């Protein structure tokens, strides 16, 4: 240690350098993603890409909570699905313009997140996960029992896409696509900012070692609740947007399997990596689309992929790449 002491002076600049090069790499990736978003609707079906983007945003929101807050929620379908219902309902029955319907859905998800989060954060680990699951099941049964609001088994169908700001018709897939792409990019940038904010630093510290963070004077529960609400809100943004894209909100959106799917996407893509959930959502949604002919077997194939992922590369797709290039992604 003593002979190394002489190298102490340059160490500070080495820190700055690596952080800088990582930031540069991330900036390049953001530009690449933006470019991909621009060309995507011309080379793939816009509806397919929009589906990927909605689920990618959902997975990004989930990863914010698990990967950076260290909190495993088994009930994220509640926020995604409830926002989907509210967005569909207000667009169809109240005649809200799409941006307002999406906003309404997102806001409700945030409120629901504040309520459920404040109950769940009182417990740790698996108990926390179980409480989030139980609360999400309550939302599912509520949705099942209130067909006047949710449309019951049928869901809310034929949701009008309406006119953005009451001006631009979104009936055309291409037109809607730009809105969805903008929402996705906005969500991604916001999450990136949260992760790299003073708040994000504290969240990561609590994730790493909660008692130590508390012993430094951080009121851990307040940070956990805040990150929970942010995650639920962004999951709601994804669900509310999805309802407008597919013109449909249904029980599938609030079902526990939806909570499971977002866990799957995040793990396949790379837990605790910034870009992993996007890759995970792409893989899972593509698989569901191309393997749709297999019917119920899709679930089995998904299960096998999940098990292989966990056995072969636990860090997920992006996690493995990050390890190879020795840079956080």
């Amino acid at each position: 240690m003593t002979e190394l002491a002489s190298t102490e002076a340059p160490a500070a600049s080495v820190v700055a350098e690596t952080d800088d090069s990582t930031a540069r790499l991330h900036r390049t990736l953001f530009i690449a993603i933006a470019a991909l978003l621009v060309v995507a609707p011309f080379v793939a079906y816009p509806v397919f890409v929009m589906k990927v983007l909605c689920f990618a945003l959902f997975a990004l929101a989930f990863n914010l909570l698990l990967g950076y807050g260290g909190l495993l929620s088994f009930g994220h379908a509640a926020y995604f699905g409830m926002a989907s219902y509210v967005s569909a309902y207000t667009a169809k029955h109240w005649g809200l313009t799409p941006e307002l319907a999406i906003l309404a859905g997102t806001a409700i998800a945030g409120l629901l997140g504040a309520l459920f989060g404040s109950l769940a954060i009182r417990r740790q680990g698996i108990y926390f996960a179980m409480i989030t699951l139980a609360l999400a099941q309550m939302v599912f049964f509520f949705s099942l029992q209130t067909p006047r609001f949710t449309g019951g088994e049928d869901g809310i169908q034929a949701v009008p896409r309406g006119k953005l700001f009451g001006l631009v018709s979104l009936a055309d897939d291409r037109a809607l696509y730009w809105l969805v792409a903008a929402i996705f990019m906005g969500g991604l940038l916001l999450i990136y900012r949260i992760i790299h904010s003073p708040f994000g630093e504290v969240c990561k510290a609590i994730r790493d070692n909660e008692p130590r963070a508390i012993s430094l004077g951080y009121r851990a529960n307040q940070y956990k609740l805040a990150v929970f609400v942010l995650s639920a809100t962004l999951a709601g943004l994804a669900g509310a947007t999805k309802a407008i894209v597919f013109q449909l909100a249904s029980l599938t959106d609030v079902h526990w399997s939806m909570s499971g799917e977002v866990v799957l996407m995040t793990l396949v893509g790379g837990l605790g990596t910034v870009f992993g959930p996007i890759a995970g959502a792409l893989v899972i949604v593509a698989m569901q689309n191309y393997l749709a002919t297999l019917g119920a077997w899709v679930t089995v194939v998904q299960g096998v992929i999940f098990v292989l992922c966990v056995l072969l590369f636990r860090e997920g797709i992006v996690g493995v790449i990050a390890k190879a290039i020795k840079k956080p992604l």
Partner: protein
Amino acid sequence: MSIAAEDIILSTSGLTKEFGGFTAVNGVDLNVRRGSIHALIGPNGAGKTTCFNLLTKFLPPTKGLIVYNGRDITREKPAEIARLGLVRSFQISAVFPQLSVLKNVRIALQRKRGDSFDFWRSEEVLSGLDGEAMRLVEAVGLGSFAKLPAVELSYGRKRALEIATTLALDPEMMLLDEPMAGMGREDVERIEALIRKVSENRTILMVEHNLSVVASLSDRITVLARGQILAEGDYATVSKDPRVIEAYIGSGGGHAH
């Protein structure tokens, strides 16, 4: 107690902790003088770590009172204790494994900002703390590891990092639980010198098994055995106490040098 009340920064009376039927800490009356280095020693299982957990509110006491700076803190929450200037380290080395060494320290410096709920701001607002964080990292001899994730440090270096993190809060009183466990001789000397240096304007209560360190650093020693205070005084007094010698030998206490 004959010591004037204003000299005492931390005191407990009748502090007791029971786990089920087992009493880990039993009626401890502890008085720590302001500005002193006070050592808490005793064989393994004596209740030292439990005492620390009680003092910093990580465990609720079964009975007893804790007064810090004239204020009853028996029922405070642990994060609030830290905000009052009473900061602990942990026996099991407590670092933030995925954060870099520098960020481990910076996260403590960040407390100066108050709460950090600003999720919309770039972490670049924290870069002003990097210089101070680096100075602390260097002070514990970790300068060349600053950018390494803490998980990659050896055990002894994690302990050093923990001390740097604790110091970053500039606490009025520090509780160190076996700060030198697992360190090589060179590092023990470095940390010993550091503790002596930082003790100039603060109070330190520490648990330490390295008795030569205890002898040279501490102003006062409390010996704990089976949850009770066995003896108290300076090193010369305590080390001659037959009950202390027996407690250490009786527990196979190979730590005595």
